[in-house]
């Protein structure tokens, strides 16, 4: 028997995680830095690991995790590409390696010091099935903050997505707007990680946005469709997994991948038909 009281927060959590990841994914995929999701996940893990080493546990680990992910996001946002002569993806690659190294060093230190690292592991590989209303409210608050930021800075983010150089040349304060956006991305992703896990978030950033890019034109419409695809992946994946008793995370990832494949087929059919 389907216990709605138990599963409702799970369904809302999955839908919210999908919608917020799809929303921010429009700009992340548009800027061609989908690896940001994995990088932020490992930075959050590194933060949580060292928080745990300092004696924090349970929900309190969210704070050092947020600290780690925000530092990584700000490093990417504030680095001047003209000065460092590094592509964003090269910076992400560096941040990913450094934070992953730090995270595993910290996990190793747990063993050396004879401490449990269970809390840390569950933060990164959280399970959607254990999502409760408290998690949902946190996700809603972070997603609301992100949505408000996008509404306020929509025209600037659209310009930055097209070309950072062009946006700067047109007199847009690129560094400030982009860094602010990346900080909110770090917050949303870190809050979502502990509920739905890192791998699933990565798929929910990339697939819905890439699918929306295939089927619609216009930045605002793409954002809405991407958020819709994300929400459909989160909720649809959960419902399929509930009906088939398959793991929810895996099914959600597969649903989002199937949506992308379907969108690519639709685009190809449209191009062939000349519409």
């Amino acid at each position, binding site marked *: 028997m389907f216990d709605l009281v138990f599963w409702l927060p799970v369904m809302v959590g999955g839908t919210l995680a999908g919608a917020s990841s799809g929303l921010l994914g429009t700009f992340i995929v548009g800027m061609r830095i989908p690896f940001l999701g994995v990088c932020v996940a490992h930075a959050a893990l590194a933060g949580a690991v060292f928080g745990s080493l300092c004696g924090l546990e349970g929900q309190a680990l969210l704070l050092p995790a947020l600290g780690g992910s925000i530092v990584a996001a700000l490093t990417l946002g504030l680095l001047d590409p003209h000065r460092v002569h590094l592509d964003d993806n090269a910076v992400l690659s560096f941040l990913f390696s450094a934070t992953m190294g730090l995270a595993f060093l910290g996990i190793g230190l747990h063993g050396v010091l004879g401490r449990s690292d269970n809390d840390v592991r569950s933060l990164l590989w959280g399970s959607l099935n254990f999502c409760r209303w408290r998690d949902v409210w946190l996700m809603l608050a972070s997603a609301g903050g992100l949505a408000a930021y996008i509404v306020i800075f929509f025209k600037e983010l659209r310009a930055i997505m097209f070309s950072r150089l062009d946006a700067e040349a047109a007199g847009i304060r690129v560094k400030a707007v982009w860094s602010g956006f990346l900080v909110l991305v770090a917050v949303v992703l870190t809050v979502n990680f502990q509920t739905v896990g890192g791998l699933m978030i990565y798929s929910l950033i990339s697939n819905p946005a890439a699918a929306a890019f295939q089927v619609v*034109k216009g930045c605002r419409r*793409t954002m809405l469709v991407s958020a819709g695809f994300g929400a459909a992946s989160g909720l649809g994946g959960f419902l399929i997994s509930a009906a088939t008793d398959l793991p929810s995370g895996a099914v959600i990832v597969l649903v989002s991948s199937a949506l992308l494949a379907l969108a690519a087929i639709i685009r190809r059919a449209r191009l062939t038909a000349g519409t």
Partner: protein
Amino acid sequence: MSASVIEADQLQIHAARQCVLDLDRLDISGGTVTAIMGRNGAGKTTLLRAALGFVAPTQGALRVLDCRVPQLAGSALAQFRRRIGYVPQLLPVRGDLPLTVREVAAIGRTGRTGVFRSFTRNDWRVVDEWIERLGLASLADRAFGEISGGEQRKTIIARAMAQQPELLILDEPTANLDLGWRERIVATIQELHAQTAITVVLVCHELEVLPPSCRRVVLLDSGRLLASGPAEAVFTLERIAELYGEGLCVMHQGGRHAVVPVGGEHV
């Protein structure tokens, strides 16, 4: 003659410990079309980037639109850039990007409109006016990545003009375009200048790209000013041979210019 829009005095710019631009004096007057030409590595793009505040001089003074560019930072630099329309050499080539032609042209209004403010009807009117004037109205709702290279270039010019700039900087605006599109872009630059009297600074490699309204060529070589004046005076046979090798001749007709091989043993 109108006041100077760009003034460089004892300007030096270094990159990787090498001097890439070394100008004793350079003035570009307002309301003119000026071409900056020279071989690869002559310092043309460096000069443009310095004028936009992307590269800091190591020595000397650089004033653009009465602003001392090297001293600008933060919001002052952003406000200064809003007065300049810039058409870069390289365009974003992401075919899957869903931005429409109208949205790309609107980027030009974004800085001008200011933070925390949405586009007004007037902003969209200016954007649509430039889309119309550049013959892009039928493409306005098409994705930027789906239109041709020439149409993309026109969209970027519309974006720069929607900014209502005092100075238009074009960095190799006909790069990678076929002959037909090259001529259309040259005609567009000519019309823009005739209709708005805007100051145009054009960086290019080919004399064929100069519109008839271009009365002055600034020729750079190895970061230094080699010659300046009308194209006929700057691009003499001797100078072309010195810069690009023997076997080329130059033709000037009706305000347009072309370099062609003499035939036979072209080096």
